[in-house]
């Protein structure tokens, strides 16, 4: 194996319908008009020396290394900033150019530490390469003059160092921060000889606005910005392209290795979701994979208060099989079930649901989408016929007006946020609908035209009011509706939204959003060109989550914003494979491909293949499992890669449900919070340790490639297979590709997917089948999957969760950039430097009324429970609203959230909880009790004790 090399063309590709033919060093080359000479040369294989140019950022023209000669033109123009012209004759190698370049290199090297042999970038340094390329043999100026070699390093960032003594002031990092990431955290400080890169104003990297995305490190041509892992380990010797295991953006990375040690993760330029960009999690936060907390041996115990006993894999599988069969014998076939993981691969989730349906003999299978985007599945299937977003991420490049509702992309989906911000800087308009003033509302060179800071729980009222304006002001795209929707359904819907009770003025008091803002936003969206809607869990995690998804679909249908690039309804999926886990039949009512279990034809396909009769009744959803456990009818649960105790609402109810079960099996990397209530622990493997596929938010199926052996001995699909075998199933896959072949053979939307296809294309977006052999980047072109697009009446129904004298504030929850979901992975990395604890955001007025100041401990109480955490006073939240994250188990934010849920899917109402906040001087009783139970539960017996 070797390193996956990617060409650097020096300047970005240009899209143009017209082409230009020129001659470079005597050879003709044809490129799109507007292309730089440097890129044209690179495309024909000629490397023009360069230092300040790289193809991820616009040309800058400062280093003067890429000078060329152009026939008939005076001087030596920079090839990076000079566009090609028809008939142009360029020379890249002449005596004059050699002399000029060598002279430039002499100047650079005269102020550069000559420590190449001990430098971390040795072997991967463009300055070193250029010195070689221009034949630099001496520096006539000597090294005694004034220089920067004495400057101190900034080692504050946990993942990379900044060594100003090695900076050549090419500004690649500054431009990457601006153009690629869109944060504008870096600048060139000082003038002339004093010029140096600086994060913010006299700050170190950690204290600055830098979001640690790594774009600057990636862009740096020297060792000025360099990964600490490279400094510590050395240069990688081979690399493998794989897919990030964090959010639903699904970024492609090169896992760069030294033997079986991961040296660094580098964003892959050919990755179609991320286009060479990354965030702090995917780029740097992979240390959890080798963290000392990983459990590598199976363990069992009789009671959840007993210490764990290590056992062999065979003993563990036999124990689980025996227990599950015992439970089924005692309580009935429906008394056991399982939860698939949205962090695992498609192949792994497919196997878990297969084991449950065919091996357990029931449909008690669910997945974490239950608590995030299940309303998306229901809502979009109803409106369009497909349970998925309509666009690819590239689509945003053709968008003119964006609505972001109930999502915080800069924190939750940072690489997509960077692509969105780039489009906004190009002039696209923005409407943000969110109770909080998220970063997108106003940040560097981005400002929303409208921010509708609605009261939590009033999404349906606001989106229906937007539709009211569209219909009553004659802004409907009537041709689109007539062509692609049922006209009589539209008329019913139009009459409904036109009712004066849905007017912005009528809902202003209820929603807290000024009517003029709703009217302005609706007009902008309907008339501003290509309109795209991006949404997140702020839409779905409500008692009317599904209704809001339908309201969003209505708005897109009425304005004709579907079926082409630049538009669409785009759910930003949370976890890396939450789309895939849903596609793979993880819901209790659906087989893979979203086909209901009551459909005889579908059941027949699987019954024939699996050789067993299958249930035609829906099984229990996750919240129903806890209810059934407390009721005594559900006693055994297999949980793969999900920490339901921390992530699911109303923690006391969840733990009571688990405590009522007789065999809880946790299959995970760590002894997570759910493992505190488990009887069997099966060690899991990381995404670096297995082959498979993830499907991201744009339905893109990306390969996951094994770069090291599983530290626990087995990939997760092998664990499930062995467990299924122990339960008597004939499951004998030799490789995940065989599982994908079965998926393709049984699931029409995946019919054209195979590992061969993925190797050839890099990735494909489903549907990928005979009708769409190369996949489907944009759905519903020329018609909807269900035939006609469906308008649905979206009556606003207030949540049952009411504020009152006892609980006068509304709590809403979310996440932060540096942490991921329950934090099981990111809390075991240096990302804790940015977010060591969950904080309660509170408006200054509310804080003052309660005598709370920044950093004070506060008791947060709802009708479900209470916890304590520290206060962050901020006007990001409106008066009456408080906000926190759920990344830390000692905070247990979900002790506060309630068991109210979405009407259609039981997706919990995380986003609206009536609470009270008061000063506190210590942990709540629950926190004390939970800490004690955790300490007791996590004991692992030493072998001598185990033998007794």
């Amino acid at each position, binding site marked *: 194996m070797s390193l996956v090399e990617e060409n650097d063309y020096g300047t970005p590709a240009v899209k143009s319908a017209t082409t230009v033919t020129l001659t470079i060093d005597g050879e003709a080359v044809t490129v799109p008009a507007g292309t730089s000479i440097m890129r044209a040369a690179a495309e024909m294989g000629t490397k023009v020396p360069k230092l300040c140019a790289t193809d991820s950022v616009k040309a800058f023209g400062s280093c003067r290394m890429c000078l060329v000669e152009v026939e008939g033109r005076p001087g030596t123009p920079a090839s990076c900033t000079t566009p090609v012209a028809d008939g142009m004759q360029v020379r890249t190698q002449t005596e004059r150019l050699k002399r000029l370049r060598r002279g430039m290199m002499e100047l650079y090297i005269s102020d550069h530490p000559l420590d190449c042999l001990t430098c971390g970038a040795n072997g991967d340094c463009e300055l070193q390469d250029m010195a070689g390329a221009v034949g630099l043999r001496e520096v006539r100026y000597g090294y005694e003059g004034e220089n920067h070699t004495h400057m101190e390093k900034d080692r504050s960032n946990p993942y990379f160092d900044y060594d100003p003594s090695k900076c050549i002031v090419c500004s690649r990092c500054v431009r990457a921060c601006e153009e690629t990431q869109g944060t504008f955290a870096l600048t060139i400080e000082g003038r002339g000889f004093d010029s140096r890169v600086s994060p913010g104003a006299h700050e170190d990297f950690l204290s600055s606005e830098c979001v640690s995305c790594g774009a600057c490190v990636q862009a740096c041509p020297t060792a000025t910005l360099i990964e600490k892992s490279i400094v510590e380990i050395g240069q990688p010797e081979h690399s493998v392209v794989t897919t990030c295991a964090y959010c639903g953006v699904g970024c492609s990375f090169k896992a760069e290795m030294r033997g079986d040690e991961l040296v660094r993760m580098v964003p892959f330029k050919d990755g179609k979701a991320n286009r060479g960009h990354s965030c702090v999690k995917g780029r740097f936060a992979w240390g959890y994979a080798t963290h000392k907390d990983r459990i590598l041996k199976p363990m069992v115990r009789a009671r959840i208060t007993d210490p764990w006993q290590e056992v062999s894999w065979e003993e563990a599988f036999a124990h689980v099989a025996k227990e599950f069969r015992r439970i089924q014998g005692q309580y009935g076939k*429906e008394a056991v079930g399982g939860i698939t993981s949205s962090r695992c691969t498609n192949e792994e989730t497919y196997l878990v649901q297969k084991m449950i349906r065919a091996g357990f003999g029931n449909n*008690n299978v669910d997945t974490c989408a239950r608590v995030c985007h299940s309303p998306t599945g229901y809502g979009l299937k109803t409106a369009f016929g497909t349970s998925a977003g309509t666009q690819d991420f590239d689509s945003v490049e053709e968008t003119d007006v964006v609505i972001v509702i109930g999502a915080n992309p800069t924190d939750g989906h940072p690489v997509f946020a960077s692509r969105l911000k780039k489009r906004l800087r190009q002039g696209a308009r923005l409407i943000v609908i969110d109770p909080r003033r998220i970063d997108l509302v106003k940040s560097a060179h981005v400002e929303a035209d409208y921010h509708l800071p609605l009261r939590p729980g009033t999404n349906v009222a606001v989106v229906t009011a937007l539709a009211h304006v569209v219909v009553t002001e004659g802004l409907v795209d009537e041709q689109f509706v007539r062509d692609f929707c049922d006209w009589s359904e539209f008329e019913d819907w139009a009459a409904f939204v036109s009712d004066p009770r849905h007017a912005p003025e009528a809902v202003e008091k209820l929603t807290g959003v000024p009517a003029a803002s709703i009217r302005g936003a609706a007009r902008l969206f309907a008339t501003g060109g290509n309109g795209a809607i991006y949404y997140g869990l702020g839409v779905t995690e409500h*008692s009317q989550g*599904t*209704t809001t998804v339908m309201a969003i679909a209505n708005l897109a249908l009425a304005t004709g914003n579907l079926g082409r690039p630049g538009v669409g309804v785009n759910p930003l999926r949370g976890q890396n494979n939450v789309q895939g886990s849903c596609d793979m039949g993880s819901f*209790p*009512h659906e087989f893979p491909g979203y086909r*209901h279990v*009551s459909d005889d034809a579908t059941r027949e396909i699987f019954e024939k293949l699996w050789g067993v009769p299958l249930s035609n*009744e*829906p*099984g*229990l*959803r996750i919240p*129903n499992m806890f*209810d*059934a456990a407390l*009721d005594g*009818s559900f006693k055994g649960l297999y949980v793969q890669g999900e920490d339901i105790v921390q992530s699911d609402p109303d923690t006391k109810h969840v733990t009571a449900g688990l405590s009522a079960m007789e065999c809880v099996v946790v299959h995970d990397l760590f002894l997570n919070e759910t493992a505190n209530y488990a009887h069997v622990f099966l060690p899991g493997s990381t995404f670096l340790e297995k082959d498979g596929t993830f499907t991201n938010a744009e339905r893109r199926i990306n390969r996951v490639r094994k770069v090291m052996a599983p530290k626990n001995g087995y990939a997760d699909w092998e664990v499930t297979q062995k467990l299924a075998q122990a339960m008597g199933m004939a499951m004998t896959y030799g490789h995940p590709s065989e599982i994908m072949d079965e998926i393709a053979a049984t699931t029409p939307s995946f019919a054209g997917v195979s590992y061969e296809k993925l190797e050839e294309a890099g990735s494909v977006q489903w549907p990928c089948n005979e009708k769409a052999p190369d996949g489907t980047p944009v759905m519903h072109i020329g018609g909807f999957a269900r035939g006609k697009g469906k308008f*649905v*009446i*979206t*009556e606003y*129904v207030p949540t*049952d969760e009411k504020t009152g004298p006892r609980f006068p504030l509304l709590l809403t929850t979310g996440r932060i950039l540096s942490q991921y979901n329950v934090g099981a992975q990111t809390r075991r990395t240096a990302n804790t430097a940015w977010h060591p604890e969950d904080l309660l955001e509170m408006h200054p007025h509310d804080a003052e009324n309660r005598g709370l100041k920044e950093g004070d401990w506060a008791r947060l109480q709802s009708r479900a429970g209470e916890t304590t955490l520290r206060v962050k006073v901020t006007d990001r939240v409106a008066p009456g609203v408080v906000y926190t994250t759920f990344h830390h188990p000692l905070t247990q934010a979900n002790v506060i959230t309630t*068991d109210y*849920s979405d*009407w*259609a*899917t*039981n997706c919990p109402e995380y986003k609206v909880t009536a609470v009270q906040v008061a000063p506190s001087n210590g942990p709540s009783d629950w926190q004390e009790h939970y800490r004690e139970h955790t300490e007791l539960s996590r004991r692992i017996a030493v072998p001598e004790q185990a033998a007794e």
Partner: protein
Amino acid sequence: MQPDKLVRMANQIADFFKAQGQTSAPAEIADHLVKFWDPRMRRDILAYVDQGGAGLDPLARQAMELLPRKS
């Protein structure tokens, strides 16, 4: 399962389908329960209906009449 929770969930479903049309609502509610509720949930709410079904939305109650009952 807890009747009050099942009733709340059924009433939420009724709220949605009521808006789509009073006439079609009972059949739509029943169809939703058949498609998405585990049989033991349907069994328990029917048992609750048999005990009077207090608190159920009238349309939800009508829907219960349409649910298949296992003998």
